[in-house]
């Protein structure tokens, strides 16, 4: 005997899945932003061996499927290094690394977008490399990077759906469970897709607001 009708409890399930997806998205975004900027700083200082390693790692992470990275961490690490990895840990490690690789690329091009003359002028004034990075480059690079970053985050939000494959009970997994119970794929997947769509739109909206604020000083104010 199976119960195929929708119940009000399904809404709770969906909300729970939505919460898990959002929490993982936020956590991996913060970690990824931190690691990615750290890599960009390593490149900025041209630290010998480390900078090359970072470039290669970022390139590999960018050019391979997230699903394979997930499998490598979730199935590979326990077998190879004998460490137990829970699905959530594997998801956090993989998604953070993947986000970091893309943040690295954006951060590097944002740093390079700032004219050399500004850095030279700052050096003439006697600022240290760290002060240049902190006071001259970071504020401008931030305004430059926010557009691409928003696009990246919208993309990364969708990438979080892949973690359902290794058993994290996120929104997609809930969709799968509801689909198998109710056998109404059109309704279930349309609702799940709609929730993702709304989240993506919210991220894009937030990014646009932030960009407007960071670029306020360059905006045309009229004569």
């Amino acid at each position, binding site marked *: 005997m199976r119960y195929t009708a929708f119940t009000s409890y399904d809404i709770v399930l969906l909300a729970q899945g939505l919460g898990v997806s959002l929490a993982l998205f936020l956590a991996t975004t913060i970690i990824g932003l931190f690691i990615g900027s750290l890599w960009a700083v390593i490149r900025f200082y041209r630290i010998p061996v480390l900078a090359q390693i970072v470039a290669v790692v970022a*390139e*590999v992470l960018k*050019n*391979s*499927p*997230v*699903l*394979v*990275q997930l*499998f*490598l961490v979730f*199935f*590979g*690490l326990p*077998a*190879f*290094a*004998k460490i137990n990895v829970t699905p959530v840990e594997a998801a956090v490690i993989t998604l953070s690394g993947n986000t970091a690789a893309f943040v690295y690329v954006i951060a590097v091009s944002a740093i390079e977008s700032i004219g050399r003359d500004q850095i030279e002028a700052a050096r003439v004034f006697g600022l240290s490399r760290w002060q240049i990075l902190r006071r001259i480059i970071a504020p401008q690079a931030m305004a430059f990077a926010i557009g691409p970053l928003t696009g990246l985050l*919208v993309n990364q*939000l*969708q*990438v*979080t*759906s*892949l973690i*359902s*494959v290794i058993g994290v009970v996120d929104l*997609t997994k809930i*969709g*799968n469970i509801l*689909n198998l119970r109710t056998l*109404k*794929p*059109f309704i279930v*997947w*349309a609702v*799940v*897709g709609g929730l*993702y*769509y709304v989240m*993506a*739109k919210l991220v894009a909206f937030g990014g646009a607001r932030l960009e407007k604020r960071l670029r306020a000083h360059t905006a045309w104010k009229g004569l």
Partner: protein
Amino acid sequence: MTFDLTILAPHIPFLVKGAVLTAEACVLALAGSLCIGTVVAALVTSASPLLSRIAYVYVDLFRNIPFIVQLFFFFYGLPEIGIYIDAFTTGVIALSIAGGAFTSDVIRSGILSIDPGILEAAEVSGLSKPTIFRKIVMPIALRTSVRPLGSVFVNLILTSSILSTITLNELTGSAKIVASDTFRPFEIYAVLLVAYACLTYLVSLAIGALHRYLNRDQTEAA
């Protein structure tokens, strides 16, 4: 804690079979998404507000919904309305539709970057609208957007790994089987990671060369 690649040797033919399936799916999906992308780009840039609105909604929806959700929608949904097709066809259709949304965006920006003077010259010459689109707009737009189209294609290859979730044994799917056969998941997935990275790197190199070749007259002028 040993890293031993030799145990994978007997499974190489099986993996190659998976890689061929991946290649087939990607090429078919590339063709499909180019067709859809061209039509949608034409609709988006058309003068009719209704058509461009519909095309915009399509692009917006399929870009903002995760591919795995779209895939499940088609995979579980199509049999519900009486369409029984195998996993491979479903996968290629889903990839084409999702890829079409990204492709249309690239082609649209290619179309919008065409100098209006060229279009005016074509109109003055008395060419009909379909002829202008086919003979003037599309060649220029496609030529200038080869490189961005290439990165869409690379993304398509990476996305095709998701097809393994609907029981299709392409490269990732067969790697999963080998991993559970040999109990050496780390080696197999590490190799797979490098293989995908090399493959996409080669594709982007080829695309770069093609882009330079097709746009050779412009780069020399600049």
